[in-house]
């Protein structure tokens, strides 16, 4: 594990509320979507939200016993806890005694075998990766000027041409290019940090290259825009499901 990850795990172990809120913000939607998928037809929206919280609470309990030498992926670890939370809920509902007496960590152990690739659930893994990228975007936003970020958003996320962006914002095209480059550079740095923070294995860190977030500016923008839209759709689905509960 790298320094950032160790630091993040340490913050979690120290019960740093901000770290937990960050975890909730970044991976909450992914967990909710995954739990909804597993429990389709059996659990409602509110239960999904409760289980997501329970997953993080279980994470809080088991973080002290996490063994980084086993080489489990962060996503697998999270998935295992979510699965256990769901299984526990189903057990409770079916009034069965299965799992009674065994603690959460006993279930976690089974999922903490060395990961040999993306084998748990490909869609889930992709969602986790997108959540990390999305978190990097969110970290970048407050660090750059509002106008600069809007330039990047309009150009990359909204797909407008440089000329259109320049006309809309009343700036020149070279200015647009400068703003783009500034935001892009910062995004690269934050992306590297975020991926490192939420990755336990080197394989997880290499996902950036595999997703097309390369050194080439054009490819980087395209890949980032695509990931942004996919993650936005996922969050929208999650919010729409949640809004039904209101």
């Amino acid at each position, binding site marked *: 594990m790298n320094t950032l990850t160790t630091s993040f795990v340490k913050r979690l172990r120290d019960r740093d*509320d*901000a770290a937990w809120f960050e975890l909730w913000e970044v991976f909450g939607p992914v967990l909710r979507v995954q739990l909804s998928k597993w429990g389709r037809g059996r659990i409602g929206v509110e239960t999904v939200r409760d289980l997501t919280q329970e997953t993080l609470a279980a994470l809080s309990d088991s973080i002290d016993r996490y063994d980084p030498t086993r080489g489990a992926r962060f996503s697998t670890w999270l998935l295992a806890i979510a699965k256990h939370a769901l299984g526990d809920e189903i057990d409770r509902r079916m009034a069965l005694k299965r799992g009674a007496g065994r603690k959460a960590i006993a279930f976690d152990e089974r999922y903490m075998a060395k990961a040999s690739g993306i084998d748990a659930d490909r869609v889930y893994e992709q969602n986790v990766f997108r959540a990390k990228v999305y978190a990097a975007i969110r970290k970048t936003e407050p660090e750059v000027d509002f106008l600069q970020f809007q330039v990047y958003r309009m150009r990359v996320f909204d797909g407008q041409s440089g000329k259109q962006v320049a006309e809309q914002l009343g700036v020149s095209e070279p200015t647009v290019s400068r703003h783009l480059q500034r935001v892009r550079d910062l995004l690269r740095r934050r992306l590297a940090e975020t991926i490192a923070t939420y990755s336990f294995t080197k394989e997880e860190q290499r996902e950036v290259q595999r997703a097309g977030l390369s050194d080439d500016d054009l490819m980087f923008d395209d890949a980032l825009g695509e990931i942004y839209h996919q993650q936005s759709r996922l969050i*929208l689905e999650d919010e729409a499901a949640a809004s039904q509960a209101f």
Partner: protein
Amino acid sequence: MTYGILSILVFCFVIVVVILAVLFLIVPLLRGIGWLIGGFFKSLGWLIGHVFEFISGMLRDTVRFVGALIAGVVLLPVMLLNVVIGRWSAAGHFGRSMKRECSVAGVCLYRVVLQRPLRFLLLGGLLEGLEQRVDEAVLAMPPADQPTRRAWRSGQFDGYTIVGSLPSGGSGAKLYIAEPQPHKRAGHRDFPKRVVIKYFTLSDGSTLPQIVRESRALEAAKQLGLVLEHGMDEHRFFYVMPYHHGDHLGIITRQLHGESDGQGLGRGQLAEVISYIEDLLGTLSRYHRGGLWHKDVKPENLIVHDGRVHLVDLGLVTPLRSAMTLTTHGTEYFRDPEMVRMAIRGVKVHQVDGAKFDIYAVGAVLYFIIEGTFPAHGGLSTFDKKSPEALRWIIRRAMADYNKRYETTEQVLADLEIVRAAADPFAVKPAELPSMRGPGEVAAQDFESERADDPQAQVVASAGSPKPPSDEQRVKIWGAYVGPEGVKAGRVTVDDQGVGVGAQPPPPPAAAGRRPKLRVTNWWTGAYQAQDRRIAADAAAAAAAAAAAGPALGRAAREFRGQAEVLRRRVRNQAVGARRAAREQIKTARARAREMHRAARNHRRQALDQRQPSPMLAFLAVAVLLAGAFLLLPLTTERSGRAEAQELARLAEAVAAARAHTSGRGLSLLLVNDHPAATDPLVQAKVNKIVQEHHDQGWVVLVDNRDAEVAVRKSLPAGMVDPGEPMPPLLIKTLLRYNLAGILRISSSPGGGESPEPYVTRIVVGPSVDPMSPQPDVPTDDNVDEQVPDSEDR
């Protein structure tokens, strides 16, 4: 040689043409075909998936329905057994289980019978109202209209008559609609006709922290006219607010999107929602100037009434300068995530600008209205619906990071004004917004300086905070001024914005070391004059100095101009609001009239449909019908015979009239020449001969009445050639109309051959109208051949 070069050139030209044809014709054609094939297979795949989903869903729900029934059948005797043996808890447990099974069975049945078939036919939208809006309406149903007996016993709300209730919010408080009694309104011209009483009682589940939180900003809220009165004792706590009747913005938004084309709001709708947000910003501006922060701005707390938006629910209102720690209270999606982070870090309220969190909520509300859904992730939310780029910019700036967003509501308002005033909002660029040009910062500075200079703002800002107000600070409450020295009588009015304004401003702080002697000039209004001559002299000197201060006056004039501009804008907004309200009222009245008409019609139909006659009544009705038919049948027969006799009499009269028409010379016959060779001179000669013969027999043959001939042709049956056939009624009517006794019809042979000999048919009206009887010489079918010479004879 030349021929060879020419051949090569031609060959090259042909090659180029072929390549161009391939590039510009065949390739696009193939791509188009590929697209069509791909689309076909995609559609096929979707169709198969759709059918498969339908079938599998039906099977699954059917099986679940049967399973739930089986479980219910198993549980029922167990429950009954427990009832019999008196195990009430177990019986209740099994009863609840049965209820769950019944619920599952009901849901499955609904899906199988209604939901899945309609969705299979792509008519799922039909169920939207049933599944969503009905559910929402049931959930939003207000509770009982009267408070509990315990509440009544505890003294109730003196001066108010409770007339209804509202659904409780998240605070657990009860909300009652009440009308102030006359003595409560006496002396307060602008006292609202209806109020809302928010009522907490520990015995009904409210907690002390909630009560403390709600009461924290009451004094400041009173200052702004948001709260009229409050009361607290050992059992309960309540406060009274103006009541605004109407739908909340969530419902209005749903209606607007329902009326739109599904792609986004139109221009008119955009203007409407922008005016709502402007109202909201105006209200929040008053809050912020008064040193308060609403903290729970969301569509459900925005009531649209008379075309204006009213911000309600003061449950989380917090003084901006409070020394309390930030809390995470608020509503998700409309609460700034940064505020949550700050609250987790333990940041104090006075260390941040709470107004910015309200501005975030305004952006979220605007996003909600434009998109019809919650802002997924703050400033990173995506826009899917059509909306002006400038409006998107405003929303993003309002929801931007804490340090990047608008500083004040006035800045947002200035930007929105540009979009609203534009002829085409979609053509407005973000670059044209005032906040992009920089005056926003100036406005923010002005606002800050204004707030710093305004003692009243300072007073209100500190109201309700743990820091006690200083001695000089005096706050106004409903009906009285309250200061360190106690309560002084004074009349308070409410201005058009609902802000409490005293008839007399608070007295200026006395000069250090001496207190002026005051003489009350009007005991009713509380107006007074300072009698200390030294103070008066000081005031005169100050006035002289002020008069000399030209630049200061100029600045004051500019400020007045600015205020005048604000007033003008406010008046304009009110006029627009009034017009909009009038339009809305007319629209609503029309809709209500239509609805009532429709309801009355449906009611009549339902009443008709619901009339289920009893078997005895049905039997009696059938018997009466049969008896009536039995009695009426002879009458009908008799009437029929009478009608026939009348018809005959009418015919006789017609014949007499026809006779009169021909002056007794005979009856008129209309010549209808249908012979195919009617224009042939030979045929014409034969026809003339026939006509002459009829004249000789006393008939008057009409050959020039074209109208009658046309009418007769229309009513003459095509195949009617035999005078023995009964004459059709239409033909009879036609003949009577033109006073004709009959028709003399010339046609070809009845066999249909091309005979040059005319075939004569004389059709006479009625059986007894032949006046010339006996008329042996009348040409008939039998003797016509004898009477008309053939061509050979000629």
